């Protein structure tokens, strides 16, 4: 009985309060927020506006476009695999094992994030180049040369993209309840079994998120790639390199290539986000 009138009173009171709160967004926050959004969206809109829509099908069918796109997707995927194989254990080490110099190691992992990619490319040349510290040995001992090859592209992309994966996975590992691993141990699981059977499934969403970031970064990689692997169509010329080259000769071609890159990134990011990243 007493619940009815109180509900009748509280309902109309609550509704206007919510509306008032929505209207109270300070202008000092709203204006920069909108400007920020424009800054992010306007260039992409420009790309769409200036796209040569009538000649688009013909331009897309040009062999150079598909070759570059294929190479980009291929190398970005391989670089992501390399990052997963090496980066997940590295993230585990940082999140779960105490060892001296851990802070230094964590700082080193993040260096490629702030390093200009061109500098990364130069550094890679010094180490893996034909006269480099490791490169000379690889060449003489196994006949393997990395610079200016597709493998070199993968190496350059992995160098630049790995920190994204390591940071994402380490964060996921730290957020995951490590007591599940203790529970696994009490059931007779050693550290390796615990890692594969319990830890990995628990942080799978974090690994997926890290892999997507890593893949996107690898797909867009330019500086380190062109420095370390050069710009050979079909071998090391990925989409960003093709865009840059086209810009000097044929603006419309550059726009078309950029558009393709944009669509591929957005489609894959959106697809993965719905499936893995957003679920808790």
């Amino acid at each position, binding site marked *: 009985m007493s619940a009815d009138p109180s509900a009748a009173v509280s309902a109309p009171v609550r509704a206007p309060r919510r509306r008032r709160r929505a209207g109270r967004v300070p202008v000092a926050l709203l204006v920069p927020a909108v400007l920020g959004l424009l800054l992010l969206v306007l260039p992409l809109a420009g790309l769409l506006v200036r796209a040569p829509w009538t000649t688009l099908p013909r331009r897309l069918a040009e062999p150079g476009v598909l070759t570059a796109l294929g190479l980009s997707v291929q190398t970005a995927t391989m670089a992501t695999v390399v990052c997963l194989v090496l980066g997940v254990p590295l993230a585990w080490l940082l999140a779960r094992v105490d060892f001296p110099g851990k802070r230094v190691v964590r700082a080193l992992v993040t260096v490629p994030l702030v390093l200009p990619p061109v500098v990364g490319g130069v550094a890679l040349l010094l180490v893996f180049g034909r006269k480099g510290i490791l490169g000379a040995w690889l060449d003489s001992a196994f006949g393997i040369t990395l610079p200016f090859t597709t493998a070199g592209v993968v190496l350059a992309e992995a160098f630049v993209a790995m920190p994204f994966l390591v940071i994402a996975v380490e964060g996921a590992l730290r957020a995951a*309840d490590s*007591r*599940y691993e*203790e*529970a*696994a*141990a*009490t*059931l*007779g*699981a*050693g550290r390796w*079994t615990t890692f594969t*059977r*319990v830890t990995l*499934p*628990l942080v*799978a969403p974090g690994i997926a998120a890290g892999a997507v970031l890593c893949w996107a970064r690898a797909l867009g990689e330019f500086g380190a790639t062109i420095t370390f692997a050069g710009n050979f169509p079909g071998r090391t010329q990925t989409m960003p390199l093709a865009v840059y080259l086209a810009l000097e000769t044929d603006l419309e071609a550059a726009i078309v290539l950029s558009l393709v890159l944009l669509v591929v990134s957005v489609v894959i990011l959106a697809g993965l986000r719905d499936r893995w990243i957003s679920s808790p």
Partner: protein
Amino acid sequence: MTVLDAHLVVERETFRLDVPLRIAAGEVVALLGPNGAGKTTALRALAGLRPLTAGHVTLDGLDLDRPGSRLWTPVERRRVGVVFQDYLLFPHLSALDNVAFGPRRRGLAKRDARAKAADWLKRMDLTDYAARKPRHLSGGQAQRVALARALAVEPTLLLLDEPLAALDARTRLDTRTELHTHLGEHAGATLLVTHDPLDALILADRLVIIEDGRVVQEGDAAAVTARPRTDYVARLVGLNLFRGHGDGHDVRVGADFPLAVADRVSGEVFAAFPPSAVALHPERPEGSARNTWPATVASVQHNGDNLRVRLDGPIPVAADVTPAAVAQLRLVPGREVWAAVKATQVRAYPV
């Protein structure tokens, strides 16, 4: 036959746990104590999740831990099963695969491990829930899956960390009864860590009560409830407890307050009486009660069907009275009353 023989010493900066513990085959021991007493630390030390500073853990005649001779057995190689407080069922595995996890790690083929798990789920009455993920199980069901998972590795020592704490009151009642049955069937030693005296009294054969890292009292339910030795234990079992100097049928407690007791005593003693033995009167009572004193009502709280009145005065006591008495005596905080306790209801025993 003693299955577990342990002396757990764990030192942290401001805390030292020092608890000797022996458990026989088939025996259920409850480790009872207030928060921060070191119960969970003791459990983790037994499971191998926290290294001992000193002492030893010997299970079935085999040394697992002995820091003195640098001996330590990794968690995964101990025959110890653990039911964690919030169960820690693997969220990505079904109930069946959770239970099969242990047997599989102990070398059983996948099919055999799952058959064994199915068998355990059947014993827990959970066959219909075998395919469910933990998030689709109720609290009581999750508790039973956790118990099945711990028992499926056939542990020599079963450890339960507050096994009923995460359940609501109603589920707790049913689950406690079931747990009692399953613990009774466990052939190995069982250690139950809890802060709930009811869990301890119902589930355990013997109580070990620790406070601040040390054992303060040990014994079966009857012995502990009849003769509490610390304020914590007294409150746990619902008794008023005083320590004082006994001389004949008198015990001087608090600020030299004489308490008449039934037993003949001398020297340092404890005197205890239940809150139900305290009668309250508006005026100084005439009659047989040997102990009477003026008191002030400090608080009135619900306690089952009765009300528990806390009294300030020469000795602070709790009294259980009926709601009718509360109304009749107008017992509100600040009200002055007379308290009376018959000497025959006060038990005294040596410290």
